[in-house]
């Protein structure tokens, strides 16, 4: 059993803890350098403020009603630690996924009432930190994310949904569109909808051969997770062994997922080439993306995912496909990405590859095509990767005109009692 706990509008919620006058009002928190909105209260969302909205481009009417804050990471970091420490009181193992989200591993515990437990977790975080959260509990990580989203959208006042029975899981599957399933990106969603697979429930019922053919083994594992079978084949821990990798920093920052996809395809192809050159095959693949830590004015994001292959491979098609699927899990819009990359691990000699029991795929054609592709690939890198290799902009003092105080870390900033 897993719980996915995430904080509602985290940065705004942190500001509200120490300034209750902000409760119920439209409030936004701006990215470093007061660039754009990275956190919005529900009232701000209702006003029409989009994620990433730029303050000086907003209509005046909107601006007048908004309370804006610069990001105060000192404060948010401390509050995040309090939230995570509170969560750790409930479980022996958890995975902190971001500053405001964590997966809780509840597999060793026998709780009779998971919904009540979820409510207890939410209430305790609220009591300790005054930060509202949503809790999704389900037999797998993908379902827990789904349950969390359901809690947020359908049972907002309670904020907790435990999919502890098959009926409750079915509720989630019927409610969620395929495009809203964690790990199914837009293109796969479009393909599924074209094939009359609209909801997650439809996806669960789709024939395995179809899923394997269209979405490869990663799609199959998603299907398994939605069926309630945890697949440990993806983790957010990087592999420790030495690996074949390919990555590059973009010359100018990238926000468009399609550009990242293009870059990753190239890196994947490069890696596959290296593998074939040394007659090896890779058993797993890691995809990572991150922002530029030296650009203090940018909101920071780093995430990676490791995907286990059904069988070790060095075929470009396989590696590119899995890389794209990995990206679907970790890409988040609204960030200025600096770098993306691939790392292949669990490398074995080509002739020692174990068979995938379920695949009837005949690889001879693909291997022939790959040889041709190798010739093209040599040129690929020069043509497609059109990013300039200029240096980064000079770092400068970030603008922060609306910074709140460090209420929990600086004695001079603690709240004043009149």
């Amino acid at each position, binding site marked *: 059993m897993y719980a996915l706990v995430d904080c509602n509008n985290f940065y705004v919620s942190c500001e509200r803890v120490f300034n209750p006058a902000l409760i119920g009002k439209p409030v936004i928190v701006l990215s470093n350098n007061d660039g754009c909105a990275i956190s919005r209260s529900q009232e701000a969302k209702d006003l029409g403020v989009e994620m990433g909205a730029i303050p000086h481009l907003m209509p005046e009417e909107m601006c007048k009603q908004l309370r804006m804050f610069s990001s105060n990471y000192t404060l948010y970091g401390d509050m995040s630690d309090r939230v995570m420490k509170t969560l750790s009181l409930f479980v022996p193992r958890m995975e902190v996924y971001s500053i405001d989200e964590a997966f809780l591993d509840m597999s060793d515990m026998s709780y009779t009432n998971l919904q009540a437990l979820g409510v207890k977790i939410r209430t305790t975080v609220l009591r300790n930190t005054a930060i509202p959260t949503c809790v999704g509990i389900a037999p797998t990580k993908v379902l827990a994310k789904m349950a969390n989203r359901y809690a947020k959208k359908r049972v907002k006042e309670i904020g907790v949904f435990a999919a502890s029975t098959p009926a409750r899981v079915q509720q989630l599957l019927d409610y969620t569109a395929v495009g809203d399933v964690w790990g199914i990106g837009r293109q796969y969603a479009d393909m599924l909808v074209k094939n009359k697979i609209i909801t997650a429930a439809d996806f669960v019922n789709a024939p395995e051969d179809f899923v394997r053919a269209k979405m490869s083994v990663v799609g199959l594992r998603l299907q398994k997770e939605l069926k309630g079978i945890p697949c440990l084949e993806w983790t957010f821990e990087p592999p420790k062994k030495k690996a074949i990798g390919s990555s590059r920093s973009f010359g100018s920052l990238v926000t468009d997922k399609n550009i990242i996809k293009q870059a990753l395809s190239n890196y994947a192809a490069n890696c596959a080439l290296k593998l074939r050159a040394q007659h090896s095959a890779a058993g797993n693949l890691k995809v990572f993306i991150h922002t530029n830590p030296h650009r203090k004015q940018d909101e920071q994001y780093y995430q990676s995912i490791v995907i286990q292959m059904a069988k070790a491979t060095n075929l470009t098609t396989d590696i590119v496909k899995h890389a794209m699927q990995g990206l679907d899990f970790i890409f988040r819009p609204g960030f200025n990405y600096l770098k993306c990359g691939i790392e292949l691990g669990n490398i074995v000699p080509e002739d020692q590859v174990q068979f995938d029991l379920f695949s009837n795929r005949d690889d001879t054609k693909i291997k022939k095509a790959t040889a041709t592709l190798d010739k093209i690939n040599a040129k690929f890198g020069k043509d497609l990767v059109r990013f300039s290799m200029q240096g980064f902009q000079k770092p400068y003092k970030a603008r922060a005109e609306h910074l709140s105080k460090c209420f929990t870390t600086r004695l001079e900033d603690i709240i004043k*009692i009149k």
Partner: protein
Amino acid sequence: MQFIPYTGMQHLQPSSGDAKVPTGFPSPAMEFMEERITLDKIVVENPLSTYFAYNEGEAMTEAGIFPGSILVVDKALNARSGDIVIVFINGEYIARYIKMSMNKCTLWAANKKVQPIEVTEEMEMVVWGVVVSVVTDSKTIKLCTRW
């Protein structure tokens, strides 16, 4: 024996790995060492829900809360009638005794010059937390009590 910087506890803890025991022999106190008392241990029961506030006003001087006192506030506790609480009301933080009965909620000061507040819904009062300790340095006490 060697001359090395003393960073603390070196001769009083069992040596780990290559760390040399500066005195050359284990201290008789080694097995009995305990953690020193700190202010956190005295006033902070739940660090995850404990926050600090700086008192500026004189409304609670008769309760020993002076301008300059630092209040230790626990946000996780449910305020009970008679507790000293921090409330956010009319756009600012104040410290008062809270008295709750049937349908009424009143905030009492510990200062004859300060009037009690009858809380109404329009005030949008938020109980921010319960004051569990007051830390006042002697300079402040001497200043405020003018003995």
